C-alpha cells in the first residue's frame, strides 16, 4: 500500500513539476544535450529589457538553446535572489543577469557558480568574483567619442555648442565630459564649447536651461544633452524658441522619450546602445561559456550575424554606441 502511495505521490510530483514549470529547460536539461540559459532583467515589465529579450530570443533560436526569461515585476534585489535560487534548483547551464543591487545579488550568484552554473552579467554588473564575464554595453570613452563625433557631424565640424549635464558632480557625467573634450581637442579644434549647465536630471529644468542658453548665445549651433531627461527638455526649448533646424539637438537618451521631437526634426540624433544587440550578444556569450569555448583570457568572441566582439579582461564590449534617428527610431520601443 505504502509503495503504491509513494509511487503515486512521485507521479504526481513529476506531473506537477512538469506542468508547473512551463519553462522548456526543466525537462530537456535532464537529457544533458540541450543547453538552457536563464535570462533575468532588472524588472520584467520594463520596455528596455523587453527590447533586450527580443535580441536574446533571436540568439536562442539561432543557437538552438532553451531560453528561460524571468525577473521581478518591480526592480527588487530580494526577488532577484529568489529567482536565482529557483534556477539553481532547476539546474540551468548558464545564468545571465542585469543586477539591481551589486552586493545583494552576488551571494546567490556565487552559490550558483559553486554548483557549476556559468554566470554572465549584462547591463549592470555584480561583484567581479561572483560572475565569469560582464557584457559591457558602453564604455565612457565610447559614449564621449560618439557624442562628440555626432555633434561635429551635425555642425559641419565647426561652431559653438553647449552641454547640458545632470549635475556638475556626477562621476559618470564628468567622465563622459572628459572624453568629449579629448575628442574635441584632438579632432574638431574648430568646435567650441561655450557653456556647461546642470539640469538636476529634470526635464523641466533642462528646458529652462536650454531656453537661457539659446538667448544668451546667439551663435549656438548645437545643444548636447548628456543625461536622458535633458534631451526632450532641450528639444522642447528649441521648438518653443522657433529654432527648429537652426540649433541641432542631440544627446544620450531613450527612443520613446524623443520620438516626437525626432519626427518633428527638432532632435537629430539620440545616442544609446542597441538593446537588441545587447540581449543577442549576452546569449551568445552565455552559450559559449556553457559549452566551454569561452574562457578567461580570450580576446574575442563571435556572436552570429553580429560578428566578432572584443573582450577586455573579463568585460565583453558591445562596442560603439548606437545612434537613433528619424530612420530607425520607430523600430525601438523603450
Amino acid at each position, binding site marked *: 500500500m505504502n509503495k503504491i502511495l509513494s509511487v503515486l505521490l512521485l507521479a504526481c510530483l513529476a506531473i506537477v513539476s512538469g506542468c508547473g514549470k512551463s519553462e522548456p529547460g526543466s525537462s530537456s536539461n535532464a537529457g544533458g544535450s540541450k543547453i538552457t540559459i536563464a535570462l533575468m532583467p532588472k524588472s520584467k515589465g*520594463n520596455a528596455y529589457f523587453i527590447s533586450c529579450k527580443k535580441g536574446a530570443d533571436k540568439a536562442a533560436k539561432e543557437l538552438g538553446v532553451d531560453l528561460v526569461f524571468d525577473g521581478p515585476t518591480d526592480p527588487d534585489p530580494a526577488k532577484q535572489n529568489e529567482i536565482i535560487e529557483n534556477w539553481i534548483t532547476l539546474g540551468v547551464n548558464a545564468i545571465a543577469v542585469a543586477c539591481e543591487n551589486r552586493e545583494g545579488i552576488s551571494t546567490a550568484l556565487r552559490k550558483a557558480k559553486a554548483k557549476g552554473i556559468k554566470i554572465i552579467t549584462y547591463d549592470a554588473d555584480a561583484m567581479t568574483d561572483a560572475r565569469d564575464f560582464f557584457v559591457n554595453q558602453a564604455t565612457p570613452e565610447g559614449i564621449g567619442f560618439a557624442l562628440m563625433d555626432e555633434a561635429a557631424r551635425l555642425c559641419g565640424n565647426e561652431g559653438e555648442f553647449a552641454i547640458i549635464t545632470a549635475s556638475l558632480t556626477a562621476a559618470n557625467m564628468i567622465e563622459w565630459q572628459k572624453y568629449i573634450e579629448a575628442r574635441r581637442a584632438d579632432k574638431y579644434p574648430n568646435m567650441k564649447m561655450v557653456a556647461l549647465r546642470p539640469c538636476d536630471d529634470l526635464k523641466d529644468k533642462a528646458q529652462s536651461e536650454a531656453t537661457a542658453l539659446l*538667448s544668451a548665445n546667439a551663435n549656438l549651433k548645437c545643444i548636447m544633452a548628456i543625461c536622458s531627461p535633458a534631451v526632450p527638455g532641450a528639444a522642447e526649448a528649441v521648438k518653443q524658441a522657433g529654432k527648429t533646424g537652426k540649433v541641432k539637438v542631440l544627446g544620450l537618451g531613450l527612443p*520613446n522619450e524623443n520620438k516626437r521631437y525626432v519626427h518633428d526634426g527638432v532632435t537629430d540624433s539620440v545616442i544609446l546602445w542597441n538593446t537588441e544587440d545587447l540581449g543577442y550578444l549576452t546569449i551568445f556569450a552565455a552559450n559559449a561559456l556553457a559549452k566551454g569555448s569561452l574562457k578567461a583570457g580570450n580576446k574575442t568572441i563571435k556572436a552570429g550575424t553580429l560578428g566578432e566582439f572584443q573582450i577586455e579582461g573579463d568585460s565583453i564590449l558591445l562596442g560603439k554606441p548606437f545612434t537613433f534617428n528619424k530612420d530607425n527610431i520607430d523600430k525601438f520601443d523603450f
Partner: protein
Amino acid sequence: MLLIFLAIAAPAFFQPQPLLSLLTREAPTLVVACGMAFVIISRQIDISVGSQFAVCCVCAGLLAAKGWPMPMVFLAAISLGAIMGALNGWLVAGIRLPSIVVTLATMVMWREALRWKRQGEFVNLPDGMQWLGLSQVGGQWTLILVALVLLVVLAMATKHLSAGRFVYAVGTDAEAARLAGIRPQLTTFSVFVFMGALVGLAAMLNVVQSPQVDPKSGSGLELKVIAAAVVGGVAVSGGRGKLWGVFVGLLLLACISPALTHLHVEAYWEKAIQGAIILLAVVADGLRTRKQRS
C-alpha cells in the same frame, strides 16, 4: 536692481520669447508659492509640495492619456492635491504632529510611491493637450494670466475675507486666536487642504506646457517656493507676510539662473548665489524683528 544691471550687461536677456518662456515656466511655481505663503504665515511648513506636484502631474497625464476631457482632468488634479493636503492637515491639526515631520514623511512617501509605480518612465500626453489646444504664445499668456489673477484674488482675499485674517491670527498666536473665537485647528487643516488644491492646479499649469510628463517633476519645488516666500518677506515665525512680496521674491530667484547663463558665469556659482540671497533675506527679517522688540 538686478534687472537694471542685466539690462546693461546682457541685453539679450530681455528678448520677448525667452522672457515669455521664463514667466510661463514660473507660473506653476507662483501658484504653489502663494499656497506656501499661507502655510508659513499660519506658522506651519509643508515640504511635501514637490512630491504632491509630481503625483498630480503624473495622474493628470495618465487621465488625459485615457481620453478624459480637459475640465475633468483639471478637477481631478485639484481634488487629488486637496486630498493629499487633507492628509497632511489631518495629521498636523487633528493628531497635532509637527508639520515638518508629517510633511517630510509624506514627501518621501509620495515620491517613492511614484518611483515604484512609474520607474521613471515619462507619460506621453495626447496631441492637442499642449497649450490647451491654443497657439504657443496664446497658451503661454493664458497660463501666466491664470497665475497672476490667482495672485491678485488671493492677495485681496487675505485683506478682505475673514478666512484670510484667521490665517494671520492663528500664525501670530494660536491661543489668542482661539480666545477670539477662531478655531485654530480647523484653520490649519484648511490651509493644508488649500495648499494641496493649489498644488493640483499648478500641476495642471505645468502639464499643459509640454507633450510629456517627467515623473520627477517638482523635485526641489518645496525649496524653491519656501525660498521665494522667505525672500519675499514672509516671516518664518508666522503671522506676517504679503503675497506681493512672494511674487517679487520668486521673480528674483527665477531670474538668477538664466541671468548667470547670460553673463556667462560658470554654473558652479549658481546655487551659492541663491543661498546667499536667501540668507540675506532671513538676516534682514531677523534684524527687523529684533528692532521691533526693542
